[in-house]
C-alpha cells in the first residue's frame, strides 16, 4: 500500500469506526460521519446530474449542436420549478401532467403485463402428477388463500376465516424469507468492513 493509499484508507477506517461507535451509543463522532456521508452524497449527485443532464441534454444540444427543438423540454423543465412561486405554481402542473401522462402511457401496459398477466401465467400451470406438480398445486392454493385474506367484503369467519388464516401464514413465510435475506445482506456488509479494517491495520503495523 502506498503512503497516499494508506492515508485515504486511514480516513475510511476512521469513518468506519465512527459509524460503528453508534452501536455503543449515539455520540459526536457518529454524527460527524453520518453528516459527512449525507453532504458528500448530495454534492456528488448535484454535480453528476448537472453534467449528465443540464450540460449533456440542454447546453450542448442547444448551444453547440443547434438542436433547437431541445428548447421545448427545457422550458417544461423550468416550468417544474415554478411550483416554488405562488403566482406561477399552476405552470408546474402542465409539465407534471405531461410527465405523468407519458410515464403512465409507457409503463401501464408493460407493468400490467409483467406484474399481473405473466405472474398469473406462471402461477396457474397444467396439473402434473409429480413433485413439480405438487409444488404448483401448493403454490396455487397458497396464492388463493392469500387473496382471501385481502378480501374485506366478507367477515373472516368459518371456512373463509380458516382459509384467510392460511393466507396470513403464507405471507409470514414470505416475510420470513425476506427478513432472512436482509439479515444475510447486512451481515455481509459487516464482514466486509471488518476485513477492510483488519487489512488496513496489517498494512499500517505489519502482520
Amino acid at each position, binding site marked *: 500500500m502506498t503512503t497516499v493509499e494508506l492515508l485515504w484508507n486511514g480516513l475510511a477506517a476512521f469513518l468506519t469506526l465512527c459509524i460503528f461507535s453508534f452501536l455503543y451509543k449515539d455520540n459526536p463522532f457518529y454524527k460527524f460521519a453520518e453528516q459527512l456521508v449525507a453532504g458528500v*452524497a448530495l454534492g456528488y449527485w448535484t454535480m453528476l446530474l448537472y453534467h449528465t443532464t443540464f450540460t449533456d441534454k440542454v447546453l450542448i444540444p442547444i448551444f453547440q449542436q443547434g438542436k433547437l427543438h431541445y428548447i421545448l423540454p427545457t422550458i417544461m423543465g423550468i416550468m417544474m420549478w415554478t411550483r416554488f412561486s405562488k403566482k406561477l405554481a399552476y405552470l408546474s402542473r402542465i409539465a407534471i401532467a405531461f410527465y405523468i401522462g407519458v410515464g403512465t402511457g409507457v409503463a401501464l401496459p*408493460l407493468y400490467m*403485463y409483467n406484474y399481473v398477466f405473466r405472474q398469473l401465467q406462471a402461477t396457474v400451470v397444467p396439473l402434473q402428477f409429480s413433485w413439480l406438480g405438487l409444488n404448483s398445486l401448493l403454490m396455487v392454493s397458497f396464492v388463493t388463500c392469500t387473496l382471501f385474506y385481502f378480501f374485506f367484503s366478507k367477515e373472516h369467519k368459518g371456512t373463509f376465516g380458516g382459509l384467510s388464516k392460511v393466507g396470513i401464514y403464507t405471507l409470514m413465510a414470505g416475510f420470513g424469507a*425476506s427478513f432472512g435475506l436482509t439479515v*444475510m445482506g*447486512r*451481515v*455481509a456488509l459487516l464482514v466486509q468492513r471488518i476485513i477492510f479494517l483488519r487489512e488496513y491495520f496489517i498494512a499500517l503495523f505489519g502482520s
Partner: protein
Amino acid sequence: MKRFFDRLILIDRRVIFLFISLSVIVPLLVKVELPLEVTPEVRRVYELVESLPDGSRILIPCEYAPDVMAEMEPMLYAILRQCYRKNLKVIVTALYPTGVNLIEKELRYMADQMGKKYAEDYVYLGYRPYPAAVILSMGQDFRQSFAVDFYGTPLDSLPMMKGVKNYKDVGLVLTVNATGGTEYWIIYGRERYNFPLAIGVTAVMGADYYNYLKTGQIVGIIPGLKGAAEYEKLIDQPGEAVRGMNIQSIVHLLIVIFVLVGNVGFFLSGQYKKKK
C-alpha cells in the same frame, strides 16, 4: 430459574453486538472453510455465459453504490473473470449515479488483473439519467443515450463497438444491480426487446426477484454474497465472497442461537404469561 430466564430476555443489546463482532473477527484469525453448494439459479447464469461463443459481446449494466460494495464487487469480479477467460467483449453501463466512479475503478482493476485492454476487450459507457428511458433507447441504438463513452470518446471510435447497434448485438444482458432499476431491465428491456437477461442482486432484494425465474423473464439470479461465493466456486477461483461466506455462516449460526435463546427465555419467563 424463572429469574434466570427473565434475565435472559433482558440481555443488553451491546452484549449481542459484542458476540456478533467476535464471531466475525475470530474466524478471520483462524482459517475456517465451510461447504458451499451451488444453487441451480446461479449455475444457469454461469452456464449461459459459458455457452456464449468466444469473442461475442455481453452487456453488464452495473447499478450499485459503495454502500453495497461488499456484496456486489465480488459478484462483478467473478463474472468479469469468467467473461475475460472466454474472451468475451464486455460492455458496461452504470445507471446509478453514486456508483459511477466505483465501477470504473473496479473495471480497471479487473482488466489489469486479466491483461485486458480498454476499447478492445471492454468498454465503459458510464452514467446517463433516467434508467427506464435509457434502457428503452438502447433497444433502438446504444448511441441514442451513449453517443460517447465514460471518457468522452465517441462510440464509433472504439474498435470493440464497431457493428454494435443495440441489444440484438449482445449475447446476454447480465445486470449486477442493487437498485429498483433491476425491474426496469426486466420490464422495459427484456419484455420489450426480448433479449436473454440474468440478474445479480443484493441478498435483501433476492426474495423479490425469484418470481421472475418462474415466469422465464430472467434466466438466472445471483443473490447477494452467497450467490457471488457460488459463482466464485463455479469459476474455480475462490475469493472475497467465499471468504466472506465462511464467516457469514458462523454469524448466522450465532444469530439462530440468539433467536432460540430469546424465544426460550420469553416462553419460560414471566413475560409470556403476562402477555397471555
